[in-house]
């Protein structure tokens, strides 16, 4: 027992958690008593005796759990073992519940954890749809309703879509570039463990006096600066989720820049790698802004600062500028990795090189650059400087150009291919193209100021974000999970169940979110618990469709869980793909490669006889394969 307590792990983690909480609590109460104040302060924007432990307890847990052991030993000048692999790899299921430094284990941890949050976020959404099925009050009062849409969005954005992409990329990206792991495995593990912490804080806000945070995921000041305690949980949760994203992005950047296998020059990187490079550039540049925005609200609330208090000269609208300077890039943080996934899947299943590979990569970079210059399109009616509107409208609409390039190039990839649609991954990828196009079109409409003035803050915006986030991001996530499931688990999923899930999701998405455009344009505002009775029928249809959409996701979960355990063995390369992750066993060996592969050609050389992307270590010294050049066939015009 004593040994178990000294070892990093759950026991020590639990003790750390309690000690951390106790430390924070005593600090607050002690200081307050010393200063002659009451021990507790219970103004709704206060509660330091809850807030400070909320920050110290997670650190206590992480210390106990072993997240910092190695770094501390090193910092203290104690002997460290650079090649200590005790926390690496998984041989039994318990290894997934450790501070594990293997990128493949971490990838799996991410995907499973985030799917759990997807389920929770989905349940919150269904509660809302139950309330909205009919005009009037059904099951929840207005204050609960505000909490529901706020937590729904926050869980989906910060705990599902952003991190699930980090998880998928964690698993496949090092393999794809021929690296044995990520550049900073311990930081990688820390990034993962910050996520459940953020999740517990967000959901824990339901227990706070006054209920969960309810100022929307956007948390506009001054509504948020005066809101009940739950809002502070949001402020703090974002810090943990944000730190997790930033650390992962730095990790990806260093990994991609420094750890590519010999021969893997930039123009030989699979587009998934390009996509994550671009995403990471957005994350490291933009995420500090949301952290800053939430800290400022936090300080306004807790320390009585006046960043957003207009009575003391604070500037209310600056919150929105800072917030959107992150949150517009964030929407592309939620989309670019999906673009990468779609490129891989379409090329593999159409047996053809990605059309216009270089322009596809440049389009990603173009989106990154433009993304930093469009934030204020969320503020066309917010009362900001009126001169800023037209320039922002122009940059916003220009973003449609690189986005269009991606869509057209995927279509170009299909032409003259051999399109296989037996895999659910490919079905989702193809459906994504159409559904995302609708979301892109509504995006351009929202970018046009006179139209946005009318439909901003209506269900039209709700429709747009769900077409791009559900029909866009989530479709790519499903595609990616189906595509790499055999690699991650070594087993095949059931394609028949996959198809049921696919058709249910496709029809459910359109039936749920298309009518939202109509009622929004006709005058139904967003973030309301009730509405004019003329929208009753459409809302009923939306609610019923949403429940169908939710139910179909159970088929997905069943398929994944059962196939993981009982599915037929998949073999290393069931899709006959070219990229490196498919050239190793499924699941790959602990250190990925016995010998680092040598990259000799582009990643998508389908149809060129003898062309190779990489030569794997096992193929022996004698295997002299010439560098392959992409062939130069072009489309007849």
């Amino acid at each position, binding site marked *: 027992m004593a040994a178990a307590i000294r070892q990093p792990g759950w026991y020590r983690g639990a003790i750390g958690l309690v000690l951390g909480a106790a430390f924070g609590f005593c600090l607050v109460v002690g200081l307050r008593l010393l200063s002659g104040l009451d021990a507790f302060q219970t103004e709704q924007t206060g509660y330091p005796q809850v807030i400070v432990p909320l920050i110290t307890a997670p650190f206590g847990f992480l210390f106990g759990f072993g997240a910092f052991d190695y770094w501390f030993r090193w910092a203290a000048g104690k002997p460290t073992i650079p090649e200590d692999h005790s926390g690496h790899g998984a041989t039994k299921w318990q290894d997934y519940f450790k501070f594990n430094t293997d990128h493949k284990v971490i990838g799996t941890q991410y995907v499973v954890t985030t799917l759990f949050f997807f389920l929770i976020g989905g349940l919150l959404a269904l509660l809302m749809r139950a309330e909205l099925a009919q005009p009037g009050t059904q099951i929840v009062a207005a204050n609960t309703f505000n909490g529901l849409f706020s937590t729904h969005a926050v869980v989906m954005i910060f705990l599902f879509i952003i991190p699930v992409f980090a998880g998928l990329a964690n698993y496949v990206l090092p393999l794809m570039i021929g690296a044995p792991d990520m550049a900073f495995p311990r930081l990688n593990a820390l990034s993962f463990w910050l996520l459940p912490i953020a999740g517990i804080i967000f959901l824990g806000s339901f227990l706070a006096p006054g209920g969960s945070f309810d100022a929307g995921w956007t948390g506009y000041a001054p509504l948020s600066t005066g809101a009940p305690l739950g809002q502070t949980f949001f402020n703090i949760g974002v810090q943990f989720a944000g730190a997790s994203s930033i650390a992962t992005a730095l990790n990806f950047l260093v990994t991609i820049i420094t750890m590519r296998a010999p021969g893997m020059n930039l123009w030989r990187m699979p587009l998934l790698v390009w996509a994550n490079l671009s995403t990471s550039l957005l994350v490291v540049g933009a995420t500090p802004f949301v952290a800053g925005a939430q800290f400022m609200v936090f300080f306004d609330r807790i320390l009585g600062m006046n960043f957003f208090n207009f009575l003391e000269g604070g500037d209310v609208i600056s919150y929105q500028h800072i917030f959107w300077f992150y949150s517009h890039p964030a929407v592309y943080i939620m989309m670019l990795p999906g673009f990468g996934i779609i490129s891989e899947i379409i090329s593999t299943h159409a047996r053809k090189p990605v059309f216009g590979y270089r322009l596809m990569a440049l389009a990603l970079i173009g989106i990154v650059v433009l993304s930093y210059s469009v934030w204020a399109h969320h503020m066309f009616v917010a009362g900001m400087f009126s001169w800023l*509107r037209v320039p922002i409208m122009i940059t916003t609409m220009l973003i449609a150009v690189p986005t269009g390039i991606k869509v057209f190039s995927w279509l170009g990839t299909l032409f003259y291919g051999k399109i296989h649609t037996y895999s659910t991954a490919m079905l989702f990828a193809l459906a994504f193209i159409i559904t995302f196009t609708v979301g892109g079109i509504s995006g351009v409409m929202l970018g046009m100021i006179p139209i946005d003035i009318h439909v901003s*803050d209506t269900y039209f915006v709700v429709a747009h974000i769900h077409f791009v986030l559900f029909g866009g991001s989530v479709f790519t996530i499903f595609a990616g999970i189906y595509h790499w499931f055999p690699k991650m688990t070594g087993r095949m999923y059931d394609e028949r169940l996959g198809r049921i899930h696919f058709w249910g999701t496709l029809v459910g998405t359109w039936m749920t979110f298309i009518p939202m455009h109509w009622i929004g344009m006709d005058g139904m505002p967003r973030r309301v618990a009730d509405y004019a009775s003329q929208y009753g029928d459409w809302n009923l249809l939306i609610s019923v469709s949403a429940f169908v959409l939710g139910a179909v996701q159970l088929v997905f979960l069943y398929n994944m869980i059962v196939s993981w355990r009982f599915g037929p063995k998949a073999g290393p390369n069931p899709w006959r793909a070219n990229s490196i992750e498919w050239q190793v066993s499924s699941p790959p060996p602990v250190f990925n490669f016995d010998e680092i592969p040598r990259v000799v050609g582009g990643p998508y050389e389908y149809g060129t006889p003898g062309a190779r992307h990489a030569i794997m270590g096992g193929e022996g010294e004698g295997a002299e394969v010439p560098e392959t050049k992409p062939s130069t066939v072009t489309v007849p015009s």
Partner: protein
Amino acid sequence: MTRLPILKMVLAVIVFGTVQSVILLQFNWFGDEASTAAKPIDTLLDVTIIISSFIFAIVCVALGYALIKWRAKPGDESDGLPIHGNTRLEIIWTIIPVIIVLGLAGYSWAVLDDIEKTDSNALHINAYAQQFAWTFGYPEDGNKWSEGELHVPVDRQVIFDLQAQDVIHSFWVPEWRIKKDAVPGLETEVIVTPDKEGTYSLICAELCGLGHTTMRATVVVESEAKYKAWLNKQTTQVPEDILKTTNQYEADQLKKEEQSGGIEGSGVIEQ
């Protein structure tokens, strides 16, 4: 390599796009029009719908054609043609969208300019937003006050000066097609020329707390004469405390200036 039936595909896009536009243009998406801004905005929407229909048609036709034509037979393990791209095509699908979106942006800018033109004889009305009610002051008519009910004359430009008392709210009358946030500490305005008599709803469109859902007011657009008659019947004036909170910061600033004999900090109020 087979040649593409370009002509047939173009035809399919034209048919698909036209049918879709015709269907979509049957609906009055934004609802009734009751201001001079509504017409140009709705026309802009129609143009956007037509362009979007054709873009959507291109994507659908291309995807449909590819799926029909190049679907692999079961068991076919061969690869597609090793085509890596086509510079001319790639330039085309970069340049044409640039032209389209810049065109739409230019058109939108023109509409925006048009609907925001101010008239010299515009009527000024103050709209006060507070959790969770709208009240209105009529400064040109003895600072009369009305609660939850707004009256405006038809066919005359009205400029609403929005004043938020607590948190952000948003002033939206769907039939007028205008919306603007009321932001504490900031002066924002809505410019509108109602051109159809009737009763409409003013909806708060920005989440403002528990009562956001029900934060509405009635808008009555009526003839100048009826408007005047209604105003005359109103007896209350805008209460002092509303003016006070709205101008609190300015007042404090003034006091500070008087005390210190100089200006400290710049005005944050003015936009």
